[in-house]
């Protein structure tokens, strides 16, 4: 008797565990399912809206967010966070825009990248060498970058600003009206990040430092070097995202990317990267950025006012993160 009742119970437990295991090992599957559900809902709510062109717009909007979320993913893997991406991205786009009419776009890009790398270097030294909490370090750095960008703005007030044509082509142009040019930047970046995280020693070091810093140190990892390089990479990626964003919106402003900081963290979290470090990956983050972009599109398609959109946005982030924690946590 007890044998017959126990068998189905054990069976159902096994299937639940199997599902859990599947979600834990392949977090992309439930995320892609959620993305598909959102797309289907949009198709039902606004028939005819979903199509190649809509997909192009979504991709174009999602690319800068996905790159910024990449900064968060990489830093979160080590147990950090990068709140300076907004300031660095805006600063980079703005600096190039002010230098277009004078020294030219290529020189502007070089100046912007050097400035971004310097900011990343200082952040990395603070986090890696002085062991300042990344939240505080990047927060302080974003104040510094924002302030300096404003000073720069006052210096360059005569020259005027203009988003270079190259950025507009890259940020908002499309092949055949569907495939965004920004994929030319995004696909190589994403490939490098994905491969680096999976196949290189540096990628493994990021996971190791985030998972257990003491164990990583005892096994010979020089955490400070890894972190300094990491925050420079993060700042450079933020700068590239700033270029794309300036091209996408055709705006050069010192606060352009500020509103992307919190969504970039949200995209990484939805994508399954743990903010405590050591767990996650960039694949999930990309889908997370797509989910957030499609969600924004859905909420505006539903015609809700901004207030309701924000409320739903926040609630869904909590819900997804909670589901994640429930599924992936042991026992």
């Amino acid at each position: 008797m007890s044998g017959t009742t126990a068998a189905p119970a054990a069976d159902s437990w096994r299937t639940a565990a199997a599902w859990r295991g599947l979600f834990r090992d392949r977090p992309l599957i439930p995320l892609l399912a959620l993305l598909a559900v959102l797309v289907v809902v949009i198709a039902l709510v606004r028939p005819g809206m979903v199509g190649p062109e809509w997909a192009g717009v979504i991709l174009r909007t999602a690319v800068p967010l996905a790159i910024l979320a990449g900064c968060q993913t990489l830093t979160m893997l080590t147990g950090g966070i990068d709140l300076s991406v907004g300031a660095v991205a805006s600063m980079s786009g703005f600096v190039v825009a002010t230098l277009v009419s004078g020294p030219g776009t290529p020189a502007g890009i070089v100046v912007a990248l050097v400035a971004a790398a310097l900011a990343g270097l200082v952040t990395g030294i603070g986090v890696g060498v002085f062991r300042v909490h990344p939240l505080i370090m990047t927060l302080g750095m974003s104040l510094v970058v924002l302030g300096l960008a404003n000073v720069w703005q006052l210096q360059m007030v005569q020259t005027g600003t203009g988003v270079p044509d190259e950025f507009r082509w890259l940020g908002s142009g499309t092949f055949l009206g569907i495939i965004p040019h920004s994929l030319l930047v995004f696909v190589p970046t994403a490939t490098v990040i994905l491969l680096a995280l999976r196949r290189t020693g540096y990628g493994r070091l990021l996971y190791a430092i985030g998972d257990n810093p003491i164990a990583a140190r005892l096994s010979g990892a020089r955490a400070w070097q890894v972190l300094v390089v990491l925050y420079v990479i993060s700042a450079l990626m933020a700068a590239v995202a700033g270029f794309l964003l300036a091209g996408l919106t055709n705006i050069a402003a010192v606060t352009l990317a500020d509103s992307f900081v919190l969504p970039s963290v949200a995209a990484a979290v939805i994508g399954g990267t743990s903010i405590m470090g050591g767990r996650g990956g960039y694949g999930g983050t990309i889908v997370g950025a797509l989910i957030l972009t499609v969600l924004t599109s859905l909420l505006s398609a539903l015609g809700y006012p901004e207030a309701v959109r924000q409320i739903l946005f926040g609630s869904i982030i909590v819900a997804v993160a909670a589901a994640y924690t429930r599924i992936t946590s042991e026992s």
Partner: protein
Amino acid sequence: MTATIGTVDRSRGRPAEMVMTWALRNSWTIGLLGFLVVLLAFTKIIQPSYGLPGIQGLASAVLPLALATVAQAIVVISGGIDLSIGSMMALTSVVAASQMEGQSGGFGIAVVVGVLVLGLVLGAVNGGLVVVTRVPDIVVTLAMSFVWAGCALLVLKTPGGDSADWLRQLVLGSLLVPWIPKAAVILVVIVAVIWIPLRRSRLGLSMYAIGSNQLAAFRSGVSVGRTKILAYMFTGLFAALAGLSLSASTGVGTPVPGPYTLQSVAAVVLGGVSLAGGRGGVFGPIVAVVILRLVRTDMTFLNVDTNLATVAEGFILIGVVMAGSLIEMRRRRA
């Protein structure tokens, strides 16, 4: 339980030793106070006309951020962080302003009480979600900052509303002697009435305990979930007070969150509260808020670009925290 806390407190020894331990424990706050005095003297030197109006302006300008910082300090001490403080301030401020519009002063009192209860509820939702979902605090409160900001927009689409006269009078001007700004008195009274009893209570001790070592606290019989929710509720309460002070000083409610969330995190850290939790108090952070504001004022006096003041703020934040962690590293090595 209370008896054991009492004995721990009393077993410190002779008065001189007690003063020494007290000074050592609060060395960071004492250092900040010293710096503030130097800074005030410096302000007086570069701007000899700096006096009563300056002090009063400083006090009323500092009040909202100071209250927001106390809110942040409470939750950080308990081992969490609340990135929705700015949004909670916006929500409570618009609720207060929209309900007080065209009403009598007496009704205003009811509104104030209601808004404070609202703050407690908002905090309870934040804390409840953190405890129930087991999602990291930073993620939950980040997401909730969208929710509360959206709710604020639902209440008021554009800045508007009104604030009761007595509420506005509460934060403007001075009390008895002109040297004591009302805003400073309000701040001291609020902190003295809520924070000091809280810190001395069993709940306060539990908050420090779960902040410093959650597992150890759990094993010593602290109800971690309940304490955490209560900590978030106190944070919500102080955020509501900050929101009220915001609409009292501006006279309207603004549905868009100000820069208070991140500034409060910065001030908390400058004030000597460890982001890892379990260490620090609220007085250090309040002094840090005043210092940051005074640095900004001094920069205006020195005709420095206000943007450079932002840069300076960033460098002060980074520099002070770096110095702090260097001291900590040396102490550990020694």
